[in-house]
């Protein structure tokens, strides 16, 4: 149990597709659009590379929120990857919700390479939402916590 006096900050894992959302995150950087350092980005070639296992693993290891960003439907660099992502995550998130896990901890957002501002706004909003939920207690595996 942490006893530090610093205000609670959530741990957010963001999976970003290389072609749109990762570039969108870079654009947010280029334009110096701030968002909380709670967000840690993992680059994947396409949102469809994200296995539900990765998301569950992040939660298991103590992430408080996981967000998945990809190209807008119809704009996938690989034509159709994000359409599969959309189905997979719709079902996965619905299942997590069914298991009583706060639905606000997971999100899919379509962010194009041109949407630096959207990326920053999305991250700000997601961080705020997750922060208001507090620590992820339902999903984390206590053994993995130091």
């Amino acid at each position: 149990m942490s006893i530090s006096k610093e205000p609670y900050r959530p741990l957010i894992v963001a999976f970003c597709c290389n072609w749109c959302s990762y570039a969108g995150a870079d654009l947010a950087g280029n334009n110096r659009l701030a968002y909380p350092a709670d967000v840690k980005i993992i680059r994947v070639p396409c949102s469809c590379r994200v296995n539900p296992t990765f998301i569950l693993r992040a939660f298991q290891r103590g992430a408080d929120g996981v967000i998945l960003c990809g190209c807008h439907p119809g704009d996938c660099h690989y034509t159709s990857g994000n359409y599969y992502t959309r189905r997979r995550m719709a079902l996965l998130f619905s299942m997590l919700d069914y298991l009583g896990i706060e639905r606000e901890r997971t999100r899919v957002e379509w962010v194009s390479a041109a949407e630096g501002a959207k990326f920053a706004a999305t991250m700000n909003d997601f961080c705020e939402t997750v922060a208001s939920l507090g620590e992820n207690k339902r999903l984390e595996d206590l053994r993995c916590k130091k």
Partner: protein
Amino acid sequence: MQEITRDTLISRAKELLASGEVDRVYGWKRGEFCYDVTPALFTDAESLEKDFEWGDFCGANLSKYLVEETRKSEGKILVFMKPCDTYSFNQLLTEHRFDREKVYVIGTPCAGMLDPKRIRDHAESFTSVVSDENGVTVSTLFDGDVKLDRSEVMPDRCLNCKSKKHVAYDELFGEDGGTIASGRFDEVEKIEKMTPDERFEFWRGELSRCIRCNACRDVCPACTCEKCVFDNPNSGVENKAAENSFEEQMFHIIRAFHVAGRCTDCGECSRVCPQQIPLHLLNRKFIKDIDGFYGEYQAGAEVGSRAPLVDYTTEDIEPSDAVKGGDENA
């Protein structure tokens, strides 16, 4: 109409063996107790006569065993299938898991299996069970015979039977039925209507009982991977020790996700769970969502159908909208 009995099946199996049409028979065999029935392979008439079982406890879905069995030789295998088993059979064919030519399917009728756990609720220490249209008669060690209504002792999956129709067979015994509008999603809806906290507590209660015996996986006709991720140290999810609840949730979420869109809702997972965890409620949630989001889909209804997770439309529901149902009504 000819009545279908154990003998009917055995004699037909013997014919097929004798003619050389098939060289093996997959069926069920009785164990120590009447309800203790397991899948079994028969290669001759003698063992069929001796051990072959057909009745209220032949719930085991035999389709999964074909994956391994068909690879063993070029010969053909006779297999008996209840309506629900044929869906799994088709699903495996869709996934190219075995060669259809190597299997001879006899469709058998099904009035619903019986659940030994439920019988025990009404009749302790039972020794034998006889059933007919009028009901179920259970003989017990100490209380004599107990008459029960069939619906009192059927497992959930049979109470909510989705289909009496055989979607695959070479030969059919008895008359074929149709699909049934069952209330199989009622329980899912009940859970959906709970508050998130109630849902979490419900599932924590259920899943914390898991001893991670893997029976659900081992029996599942959709779980036929050459190597299961849960047995693979490189998969990142391999972990057999049951040390806390989330580990179990993770296992069950991943397992349910792996069979999402492929699960035929045969209910074997819940049947074999020694801890009586209602695992079918996870699978049915996916089925319900798939039906709701992408249109009705029954895995295994036809060979070669495109599973919802390997398909898409450009207008699919967004994940954010997908979880808007079943709101927190706390």
